[in-house]
């Protein structure tokens, strides 16, 4: 195997240090590169320690530098935009890692590392789904806390300063998603009848346009960090966007993210009721179970669209990778979860219509 070239080589490292010193109004900044962290299939996460002398940030900060090209998956935000979302979430009181410095394309910062990037505080704990769900008893308090945190995230509304790059769904979140997923799936939407049926179902059963909030859009076990049973940080904000708040609740509870704890429907942690109760504590709105049922269908189609795109990154030759290749072959299991869910809804009424 050929080694990846180092992100912070001898020319980039001093340039980054000078950039941080400028941003932090510091006398001197040293960046210690502690190597890549395991992370998503899309991003590069580098553990760094910042030693800052002088200015408001003086001190030693354990941090993560996050960058990566916006290749592959259509829905993902650029890294600087993701940093702005993180800033809004942190300001809303959610347990998002605090972003310290965000690159500014208008200021020419992208040239520094070859792509947009940001630096955030490093959280302790593990994110790996199998480790997080491993528990003899249901993790009721953690499920409730995940609900509370989601309620805080959903307090962020369109018009929030710094988030004007996020587009509004038209004519409604459900119909926008149906169009987006179809678009991301490309030719697969016309050659896979399970996907064709799922997309048709989304169109026929879409809830009327309602309240729109900031959705994380990848809020699930595997994308938050836990240390000794307690939440330390919600991570991986690259898919955030304006949508129906029930979309995030359904994603969290989808069968795809239980990591072997199939009976604990809230992310493999506990019952949905614990998660929903936490949500209602902070969100100032009730959980709409009909909408959650609709959005769970959307969750499987969204995950299918993302898996197709991951697979295509390999198949197209742009990024040969056995992990991406195998993700492309996960479609039948995602579709089985979709069919099980649709079977469970057969005959139920959603928004005045028989599903």
């Amino acid at each position, binding site marked *: 195997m050929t080694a990846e070239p180092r992100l912070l080589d001898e020319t980039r490292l001093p340039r980054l240090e000078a950039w941080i010193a400028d941003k932090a109004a510091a006398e001197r900044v040293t960046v210690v590169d502690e190597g890549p962290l395991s992370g998503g299939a899309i991003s590069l996460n580098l553990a760094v320690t910042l030693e800052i002398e002088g200015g408001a940030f003086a001190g030693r900060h354990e941090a993560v530098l996050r960058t990566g090209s916006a290749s592959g998956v259509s829905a993902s935000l650029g890294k600087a935009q993701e940093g702005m979302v993180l800033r809004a979430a942190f300001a809303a009181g959610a347990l998002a890692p605090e972003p310290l410095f965000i690159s500014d394309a208008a200021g020419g910062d992208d040239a520094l590392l070859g792509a947009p990037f940001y630096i955030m505080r490093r959280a302790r704990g593990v994110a790996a789904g199998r480790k997080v769900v491993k528990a003899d008893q249901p993790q009721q308090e953690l499920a409730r806390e995940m609900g509370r945190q989601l309620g805080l995230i959903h307090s962020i509304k369109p018009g929030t300063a710094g988030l004007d790059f996020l587009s509004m769904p038209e004519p409604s979140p459900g119909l926008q998603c149906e169009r987006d997923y179809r678009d991301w799936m490309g030719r697969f*939407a016309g*050659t896979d*009848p*399970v996907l064709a*049926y799922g997309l048709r179902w989304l169109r026929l059963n879409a809830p009327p346009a309602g309240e729109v909030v900031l959705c994380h859009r990848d809020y699930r076990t595997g994308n938050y960090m836990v240390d000794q049973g307690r939440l330390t940080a919600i991570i991986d904000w690259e898919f955030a966007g304006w949508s129906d708040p029930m979309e995030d609740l359904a994603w969290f509870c989808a069968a795809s993210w239980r990591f072997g704890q199939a009976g604990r429907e809230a992310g493999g942690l506990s019952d949905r009721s614990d998660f929903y109760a936490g949500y209602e504590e902070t969100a100032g709105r009730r959980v709409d179970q009909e909408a959650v049922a609709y959005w769970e269908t959307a969750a499987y189609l969204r995950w299918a669209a993302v898996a197709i795109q991951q697979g295509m990154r390999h198949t197209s030759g742009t990024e040969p990778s*056995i992990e991406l290749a195998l993700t492309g*072959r996960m*479609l*039948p299991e995602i579709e089985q979860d979709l*069919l099980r869910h649709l079977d469970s809804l057969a005959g139920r009424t959603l928004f005045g219509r028989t599903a």
Partner: protein
Amino acid sequence: MINDEPDARGLASIALQTFRDSVLPAVPAERRFEALMIANALGIAERELAAKPDAALEARIPQLCSDIDAGAYDAPERQADLRKVLWELTRARLAISNPRLLDPAKLGAA
């Protein structure tokens, strides 16, 4: 075409068996995840090469997709019939990609 033996399926099969029996136990922990992915990929390839695709059924699939898009299966009873066919197609693909996940409640239903 001259028949070369073993065929692709036979090669994938013995490659997987050798990999599992002799190589995997010697793989260091930090490479284990990749090694398991290799075994998984070889297993899928072996099962796909062993499968007998139903050409007549496959030829009908693009038309089925267009009919679904056009609303031909919108009525609830039509949807129920369609879902039976979709289960059958999905189970056949899952039997190749990840047979351990085949839903036991649906065994024999298709």
